[in-house]
């Protein structure tokens, strides 16, 4: 069992020079669990942790096909925020942000939350009106937001392009000071360690190959390491939701697309906030190591390759230089792609499925990382009570059939346009 991390344990290890024990145990799968969670990403690990911590359900296994942190939890741009427009999103992501704010203490693991503030830019008066409306919606929900005029943006972000001939002049922006970044690997490791300490089995290199069904309901999973019985089973495999759902005989409103992220060579502290360009989907921040981390739209067509297309590299680099001309000569250190579930309304699915004892968490589009604590919190509640948590009631698999799509950006039912 891993020791509790503290100043005292840090000093003791420094003085004795003994290696740190494993953060979580390597487990062989048992034959049976109360709950099996498929997918050892941030969401699956958070679900296991909250099942144990909030609901006292500790006979839980998390099955991960690769190693922990190898999927989207380690591929995102690490942003957290709660500046949303639609009822449902606002409350859900604010719950998530509040959990982020207490997470390092809750998990006894430093996830390095940095509330540096996020600024969304407006490049025209009408766009600034939309941001004002969004800020008002946030404040009506008790979430602090500040509308910035052009001068205020200039004071905070003096390095943007404010020239008279700029293609996308800056009229102002909306600031959420509590938004920021989190070290994403630490989220996977912290949840894994905390869940392990509560008795959860984390089983890496264990691929689910099928579901065991009895009288229609799911009673376990077939895996590359044998059959495992489960009272309840949850799918939490962002990117491969369709494959797992198909093993259970379900077709879901999900297409898999590639989202790329980029990091430049490290430079001195320069970008102190998270900045979202308003003229294209583009967002940038600076990592603790000094690299500028940024991303844009999905590549545009469905793919499972985890390899980004070069034309998108160019588009995103053009956005970066349009926003901050002074970085034009920085070299890109790396770019990579994650497989992202895209849904017809840009919103995820969290809840029960038409199959008894089978639960689903997927379809996160661009929002998966910032949602990690709340998604785990709400899915754990849903599994424990066999009933959706109030914060995710609007995220049911059947919402399109009922005409209740939840389209934050008003884009219509196109997965690849969300």
């Amino acid at each position, binding site marked *: 069992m891993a020791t509790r991390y503290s100043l005292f344990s840090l000093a003791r290890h420094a003085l004795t020079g003994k290696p740190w024990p494993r953060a979580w145990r390597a487990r062989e799968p048992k034959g049976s669990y109360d709950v099996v969670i498929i997918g050892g990403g941030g969401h699956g690990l958070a679900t296991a942790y909250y099942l144990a911590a909030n609901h006292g359900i500790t006979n839980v296994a998390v099955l991960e096909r690769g190693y922990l942190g190898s999927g989207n939890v380690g591929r995102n741009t690490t942003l957290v925020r709660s500046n949303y427009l639609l009822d449902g999103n606002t409350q859900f992501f604010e719950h998530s942000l509040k959990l982020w704010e207490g997470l390092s203490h809750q998990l006894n693991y430093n996830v390095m939350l940095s509330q540096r503030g996020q600024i969304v830019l407006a490049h025209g008066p009408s766009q600034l009106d939309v941001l004002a409306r969004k800020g008002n919606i946030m404040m009506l929900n008790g979430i602090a937001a500040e509308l910035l005029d052009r001068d205020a943006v200039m004071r905070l972000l003096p390095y943007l392009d404010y020239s008279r001939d700029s293609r996308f002049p800056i009229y102002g922006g909306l600031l959420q000071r509590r938004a920021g970044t989190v070290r994403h690997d630490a989220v996977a490791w912290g949840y894994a360690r905390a869940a392990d300490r509560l008795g959860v089995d984390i089983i890496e290199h264990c691929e689910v190959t099928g579901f065991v069904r009895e009288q229609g309901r799911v009673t376990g999973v077939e895996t590359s390491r044998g059959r495992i019985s489960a009272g309840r089973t949850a799918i939490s495999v962002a990117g491969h939701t*369709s494959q797992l759902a198909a093993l259970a005989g379900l*077709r879901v409103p999900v297409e898999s697309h590639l989202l790329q992220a980029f990091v430049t060579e490290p430079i001195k502290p320069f970008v102190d906030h998270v900045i979202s360009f308003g003229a294209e989907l583009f967002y940038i921040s600076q990592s603790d190591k000094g690299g500028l981390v940024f991303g844009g739209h999905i590549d*545009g067509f469905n793919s499972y390759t985890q390899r980004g297309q070069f034309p998108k590299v160019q588009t995103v680099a053009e956005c970066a230089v349009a926003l901050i001309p002074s970085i034009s000569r920085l070299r890109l250190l790396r770019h990579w792609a994650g497989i992202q579930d895209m849904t017809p309304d840009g919103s995820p699915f969290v809840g029960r499925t038409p199959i008894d004892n089978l639960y689903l968490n997927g379809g996160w589009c661009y929002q998966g990382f910032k949602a990690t604590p709340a998604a785990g919190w709400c899915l754990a509640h849903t599994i424990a009570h066999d009933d959706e948590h109030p914060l995710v009631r609007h995220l049911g698999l059947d919402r399109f059939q009922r005409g209740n799509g939840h389209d934050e950006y008003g884009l219509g039912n196109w997965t690849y346009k969300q």
Partner: protein
Amino acid sequence: MLRINCPHCGVRDYTEFRYAGDASKPRPAHASTDVAAWHAYVFLFDNPKGDHEEYWQHVLGCRAWLVLERNTATNGVGHARLARPAP
């Protein structure tokens, strides 16, 4: 760079085209009132990891709509045909 062999224009970079979704789903009859069938047509996807038939429009070329065979696990591009066959 993915290259698509447009029946009208020849082999071109994929950036001249725009992806437009799964082409394998049969559209319900226009007068159909079967809500489940429309729901499946509009909202559900097989989303295979492998061979996929999909619509692309040659927006920066002849503007024709094509059906392209592509492998989503490798991005290997196959045959492209006109979405609407000649009369």
